[in-house]
């Protein structure tokens, strides 16, 4: 096997495996890397390939190791791991062109597995580069004499020729409902809002720059301090952690005095949870959902693929003016044994206040005036977390404030609950939409007041109003451990990031988000009627056939214009005739040279054949194209008896 070709194949396999290195078991990555290095050394030093028994040993040991590691030999993860290992091992027995061919096909197959883990633009570009390397190696295999530059050009042309086919397949391939390869859970083990909250959970989340969702508003966007995206509503407190709690209640909420309607489109990144995000309070969504009694928007199945939905919300509302007693009871539950000082304080407020609204006001001014600080790095809290926070550290992030506030309210006999979600977002003026990141995660409170229903109270706003008005970066000190980009980056970097996000958004919308619905809509716009997937499939086959036929026609035309003329055809026939008698003409052999060789081997043919060769040379290369001479040559050539 040619050294350069081997290096090309090594590079292909390396590029194919590299993105997987991160999630393969460490020992498999190391083994693959070791094998690649070993193979490179063998090629470099022209040493023979390892013996078959050794390869068998490694193969069985590796397969066994994988079986032990994963406790199974079936499933996606195991399959990918096995493929990586076997492809690398195949390099070790690269002896015949057939082996190289197998390796090339295998590489083409394996790069697809990248999409299991990421479908972003950089991944797509990387795979294109990998494909280019693979195709270049393939061209090398087929035409070993071509130098690197023309080889690259041929590979590029081949990829370009595949473009129309790709386009047809992309547009017309019947889409399955849901992602094609059933996106498994672990692909989205990414962090996001959880259905419980304890001190530190949101401040940890706010270190992540990952996009939670993108929103574009129809018309004028609402004020920033109205952008409360509701996530899980937490009812139950065990002294440290807030959870959803349980209730048999399913009655829908009753909204009255609705006003300030706003429409928007949300593109939600998969978070593997069942809730969707909507502005308070949601009125209408384009996907089937249920609205719970505490105004959450829930789907039947978890969001495992990017989801796009339009929604309408009312920014001013009255919610549940009449609330069930059981609900109000739930909004008052407290672990009585914890946080005695806070309970005592709440009791004092209760005694000194005329009504519930006054208690809320007292609490907010308490937070505002007692030297509380808003920080991403609050100190750890003890068993009595609310007490420690209220009277000890006085430093906290939004979850501390929401938690303490709701605790105080409940202790003061005001029904209250914790609401988690996102607040605010970053405006992308390039694409004219808002990006809501994990760092925008927020927690606030809701209290139920007689005659007003459930009212949103954001205690964070009492301590750090700029968090609500301007966003996270404005509200914490610059040396805080914020993600780099959530601080105030230079303008050009901000622009770059927004432009990139716009591009990523388009990619999500049009490439990754091209599902059955969009496909049908697009085809309808193209004029196709009463679409069924059978019809799409037929159209796709027809399109593919058409493109291939066009290419074929183009190439055939090339053949026809280069068809040998009669003289040459007769000459080639003559050569074939002689080839049967063991005297084939070499491709580079001129007519006269060939005639000399024939004359040496078959003296009886010498004169006749030499005459034919001279005539042929004159007709093919001479200036004088005499019809008579052509005719004579053709006759004599046909008459030659070997």
């Amino acid at each position, binding site marked *: 096997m040619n050294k*350069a070709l081997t290096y090309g194949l090594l590079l292909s396999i390396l590029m194919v495996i590299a993105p997987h290195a991160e999630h393969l078991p460490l020992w498999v990555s190391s083994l693959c890397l070791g094998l690649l290095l070993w193979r490179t050394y063998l090629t470099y030093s022209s040493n023979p390939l390892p013996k078959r028994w050794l390869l068998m040993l490694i193969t069985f040991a590796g397969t066994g190791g994988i079986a032990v590691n994963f406790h199974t030999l079936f499933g996606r993860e195991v399959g990918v791991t096995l493929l990586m290992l076997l492809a690398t091992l195949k390099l070790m027995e690269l002896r015949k062109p057939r082996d190289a061919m197998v390796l090339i096909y295998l590489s083409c197959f394996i790069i697809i597995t990248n999409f299991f883990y990421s479908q972003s633009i950089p991944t797509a570009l990387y795979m294109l580069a990998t494909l280019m390397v693979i195709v270049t190696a393939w061209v090398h295999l087929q035409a*070993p*004499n*071509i*130098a*690197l530059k*023309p080889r690259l050009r041929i590979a590029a042309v081949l990829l370009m020729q595949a473009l129309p086919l790709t386009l047809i397949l992309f547009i017309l391939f019947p889409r399955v409902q849901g992602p094609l390869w059933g996106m498994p859970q672990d692909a989205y083990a990414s962090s996001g809002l959880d259905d419980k909250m304890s001190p530190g959970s949101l401040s940890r989340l706010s270190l992540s720059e990952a996009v939670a969702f993108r929103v574009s508003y129809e018309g004028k966007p609402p004020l920033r301090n109205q952008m409360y995206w509701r996530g899980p509503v937490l009812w139950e407190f065990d002294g440290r952690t807030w959870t959803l709690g349980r209730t048999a209640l399913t009655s829908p909420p009753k909204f009255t005095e609705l006003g300030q309607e706003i429409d928007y489109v949300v593109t939600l990144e998969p978070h593997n949870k069942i809730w969707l995000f909507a502005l308070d309070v949601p009125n209408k969504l384009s996907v089937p959902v249920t609205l719970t009694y505490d105004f959450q928007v829930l789907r039947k199945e978890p969001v495992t693929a990017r989801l796009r939905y339009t929604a309408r919300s009312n920014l001013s509302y009255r919610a549940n003016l009449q609330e069930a007693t059981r609900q109000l009871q739930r909004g008052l539950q407290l672990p009585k044994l914890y946080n005695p000082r806070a309970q005592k304080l709440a009791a004092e407020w209760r005694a000194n206040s005329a009504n519930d609204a006054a208690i809320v006001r007292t609490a907010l001014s308490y937070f505002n005036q007692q030297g509380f600080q808003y920080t991403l790095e609050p100190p750890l809290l003890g068993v009595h977390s609310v007490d420690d926070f209220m009277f000890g550290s006085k430093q906290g992030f939004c979850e501390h404030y929401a938690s303490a506030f709701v605790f105080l309210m409940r202790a003061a006999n005001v029904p209250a609950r914790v609401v988690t979600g996102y607040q605010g977002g970053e405006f992308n003026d390039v694409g004219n939409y808002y990006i809501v990141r994990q760092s925008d995660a927020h927690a606030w409170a809701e209290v139920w007041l007689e005659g007003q229903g459930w009212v949103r109270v954001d205690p964070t706003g009492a301590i750090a109003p700029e968090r609500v008005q301007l966003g996270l970066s404005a509200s914490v000190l610059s040396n805080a451990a914020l993600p780099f980009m959530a601080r105030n980056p230079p303008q050009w970097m901000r622009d770059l990031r927004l432009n990139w996000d716009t591009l990523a958004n388009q990619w999500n919308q049009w490439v990754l988000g091209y599902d059955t619905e969009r496909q049908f809509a697009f085809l309808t716009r193209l004029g196709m009627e009463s679409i069924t997937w059978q019809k799409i499939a037929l159209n796709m086959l027809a399109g593919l056939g058409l493109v291939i036929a066009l290419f074929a026609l183009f190439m055939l035309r090339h053949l026809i214009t280069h068809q040998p003329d009669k003289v040459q055809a007769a000459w080639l026939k003559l050569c074939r005739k002689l080839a049967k008698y063991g005297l084939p003409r*070499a*491709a*580079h*052999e*001129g*007519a*006269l*040279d060939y005639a000399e060789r024939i004359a040496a081997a078959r003296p009886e043919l010498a004169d006749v054949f030499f005459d034919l060769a001279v005539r042929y*040379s*004159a007709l*093919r*290369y*001479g*200036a004088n194209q005499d019809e008579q001479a052509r005719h004579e040559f053709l006759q004599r050539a046909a008459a030659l008896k070997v």
Partner: protein
Amino acid sequence: MSQSLHNVIQQAEKIILGKPQQIRLALACLLARGHLLIEDLPGVGKTTLAHVLSRTLGLQFQRIQFTSDLLPADILGVSVYQRDNGKFEFHPGPIFAQMILADEINRATPKAQSALLEAMEEQQVTVEGKTRPLPSPFFVIATQNPAYQIGTYALPESQLDRFLMRIQMGYPDAQAERGLLSGVDRREIVAQLTPQMESSELLAMQKSAREIFVSPALLDYVQAILRYTREAARFTHGLSPRAGLALLSASRAWALLDGRDAVIPEDVQAILPGVVSHRLQAVGEYSKQNSDVLVRELVEAVAIP
């Protein structure tokens, strides 16, 4: 082929034994109005070949021995002050001859080399602001010692390109060498040679060489060769369009020598080693190969369309 051309070849073959191919290549080079570079060890008959050709073709002959202290003026000539009339008078250098033997060209400095090479390219010499045409026909045979010998200034590729062909003499075979050793002194025979041709006849023949027919089928073949050298992995760079033109003009001259009125692929193959071996450079693992082997592989790799 004309009788006189035939006689030239016969005479030359009588003196330079066992080298018919080299003699014909040298003649083809002359007919194609190119210049010839002969590369080989000292003493294999490079100079004799030049002598014989100039004598039998009846060309004015000048020999320039290149040494490391040779100056451009030694080649081109100088103006000397004349006391009689108080003017400068130009004394032409050895370059003003129809046939020049530039012996051991790679022993001179690049400055002297380029003086010769510019004259070759432009067929004229500019000295002290005045341009003087060189005689016609004008033919330079340069010889050079192999590059590994001491005291050589290798000609750069761009200047090698000025030579239509580079050929090697090689040792004679046993029979030819016996004839050489037992025969009379070559120099004596050369002195007795009679010109077989007028220079006007040579010019006419150069003209008819240019008129040899080249068919589209042959151009296909030449282009296939050029394309192969550009795409094949074994060469550092492919042949230039100028090399393509050189191939064609040399092939035409070869066809004329063979008495044909059209070029056939065999002509191209015959002159290919001479024309491309100094224009191609092998890469990596191929560079150890002899240039002859390289060219033979090139011939065998390109099918005649």
